[in-house]
């Protein structure tokens, strides 16, 4: 509370609390301490004091956040604020960047994913990821979806594999559109269909968490609407972390929202509260369009 500006006499503590509740700006604009509840009642992923460096440059500063079971949490913030970097630390996709270094503690189901003994292969099967640009493999639609189950040996025979592929495509809302042309190349689909194919590919390995890195930024509004509808259905089964540039999208799909600014997690809270009543001045600037 040390960052709260002493704009009212210190003896009237009641008034101060009240003004906080009313959303009056009590927080110093320069404060980089996270505002809001970083904990969750039913924690699935727990991050404490995470720092990420690209070589000398620090991309994430001392970030702590819990992500709950079966919740949709969206990360918003201006470009380069570290939201995608943080997303990629959750399934160690940053390992592919040689200069990237992660400090701190990230636990999924109480297992430290940056522990020496952690194998990234099962981790990434457990934490799936959908990318900004649809990236189907240059294989058939069927093989795209069957790829994950095959490499993880999830199906004993062809019938089981067929079933997994069909179920995944149904869950991704793509089955009706492609059921007659499963052996055509996945790259021949439209952008929105390709992205849903990538989602089907991700859920085919039966992950617990799905990370989505701006999944709609390369899509038109209709395809975006379909993906958002899909997210609403998927949250029944999966924990979803979504990075987005569209505040409307964050407001539509997520229960919790986290606002990032220059590598700091500025504010996190209930999506409604963030968009109607942001506490931190930086969050308010971003939400109201004064910044970013």
């Amino acid at each position: 509370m040390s960052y709260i500006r002493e704009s009212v006499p210190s003896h009237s503590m009641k008034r101060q609390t009240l003004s906080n509740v009313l959303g009056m700006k009590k927080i110093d604009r320069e404060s980089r301490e996270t505002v809001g509840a970083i904990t969750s009642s039913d924690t699935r992923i727990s991050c404490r004091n995470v720092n990420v460096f690209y070589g000398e440059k620090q991309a994430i500063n001392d970030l702590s956040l819990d992500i709950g079971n079966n919740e949709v949490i969206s990360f918003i913030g201006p470009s380069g604020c570290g939201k995608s970097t943080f997303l990629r630390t959750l399934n160690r996709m940053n390992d592919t960047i040689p200069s990237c270094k992660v400090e701190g503690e990230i636990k999924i189901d109480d297992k430290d994913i940056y522990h020496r003994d952690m194998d990234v292969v099962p981790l990434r099967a457990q934490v799936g990821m959908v990318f900004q640009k649809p990236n189907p493999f240059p294989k058939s639609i069927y093989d795209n979806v069957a790829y994950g189950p095959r490499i993880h040996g999830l199906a004993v025979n062809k019938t089981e594999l067929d079933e997994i592929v069909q179920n995944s495509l149904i869950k991704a809302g793509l089955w009706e559109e492609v059921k007659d042309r499963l052996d055509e190349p996945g790259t021949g689909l439209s952008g929105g269909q390709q992205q849903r194919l990538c989602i089907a590919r991700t859920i085919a390995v039966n992950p617990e968490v799905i990370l989505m890195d701006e999944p709609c930024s390369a899509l038109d509004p209709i395809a975006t609407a379909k993906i958002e509808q899909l997210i609403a259905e998927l949250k029944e089964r999966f924990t979803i972390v979504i990075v987005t540039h569209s505040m409307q999208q964050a407001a539509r799909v997520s229960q919790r929202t986290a606002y990032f600014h220059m590598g700091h997690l500025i504010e996190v809270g209930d999506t409604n509260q963030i968009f109607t009543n942001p506490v931190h001045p930086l969050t308010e600037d971003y939400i109201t369009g004064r910044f970013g």
Partner: protein
Amino acid sequence: MSPSILLILLLILAYVGFYAGKKRAVGCVEGKVKFLHSLPGFYGFYVSLWSVIPALLITLIWLIVEPVWMTQAVTAQLPEEMINLPPERLNLVLNDIRNVVNGSTLATQSDSVILDAASHYESLQSLSHWLMAIVTIGLSMACMWISCQRIHQHYRARNAVEKAVTGGMVICSTIAIFTTLGIVSSVAYESFLFFQSVPVFDFLFGLDWSPQTAMRSDQVGSSGAFGAIPLFTGTLLVSLIAMLVAVPIGLMSAIYLSEFAGPTFRATAKPTLEILAGIPTVVYGFFAALTVAPFIRETGEAMGLSVSSESALAAGLVMGVMIIPFVSSLSDDVINAVPQSLRDGAYALGATQAETIKQIIFPAALPGIVGSILLAVSRAIGETMILVMAAGLSANLTFNPFEAVTTVTVQIVTLLVGDQEFDSPKTLAAFALGLVLFVVTLMLNVFALYIVRKYREQYE
């Protein structure tokens, strides 16, 4: 006036034309350049192009026609008995005359008829060159004046210059095509002559190659046998050995360089690998003949095999090393061109690095890899120097890599080296072999390009 001085004069005229055109264009609008249709420089280029190109064309035609006309004129002046000589003897006489004119034969050594003819030739030549200079420079100045007169405020000089530049680029780009056509037609013509003395079927499917033919009618033996199958099998055998070396090593190094190696190692290793492609093939040749072949022979003898000192194996191995960079460098580029997003997609599904390379990257890069291998094959088939030095000359019909074999390219070299009659089947056979080689490598290249093109867009 010699043609080279004329050329310099033309360039000076072009320079003058540039400033004349520019000045006139600026003068048209009294210095207000913005009212001109094109920038002043374009008017300059327009005039200078007009003052050079027609004049150059005339010079070119003149230089082509001049010798023909002069030969006729000089021949007409020769004594009766010389004119009636058979054509090839007459050519020799004319050659003598030209040699005297050029100063390559001492004038005192030639007889008076030749000397007279030579002085006649010389006087004609200088007259012709003076005429050419006057005509060319006159034409150049006339064109300059006319094109200057055509310049006015709204004249579209830029469009005219752009058209000329486009034409120039079209000519440049078709030079390669016309060269290819020229080579093909000359090789095809000589091969046609060859196939008049040796049937096509005997050439393509004959099993016996011994191209020595009698040069004089009193020579015995050496009737010549032109069955090219031993050469084809030899070429095939050596290329196969080379590809067995180059494809695995090249591909593995490409995969290592693009997927596993750190940036520092890659920055050193890739150029080093490409140095292999820069070593002259002659150096590879004596490396194969003096180092590898004896080593193979001694190793083979130690194991109780009979290995000839020039073997297909030695030549093939060294050639394989030579074409490693063709496979590795091209494949490395292709593998690097596979988008990072595909790798990310596979890793995000929990694929290991090996699975990603085998199942995602390799299939996506396959068309390019196949293309690089086919290019390497056509390089291997066309390679000559290593084989001349290390594979031997005997046309054995064998698939035993320890024996000496000979290849199409080696035979072309041996058929055409030394003093030859250029109308015997022996030398003409070289053209037929060249034609076969050309057709095969052309088909391989076309096929490689087809594959690369057909599958290129799959991941874009």
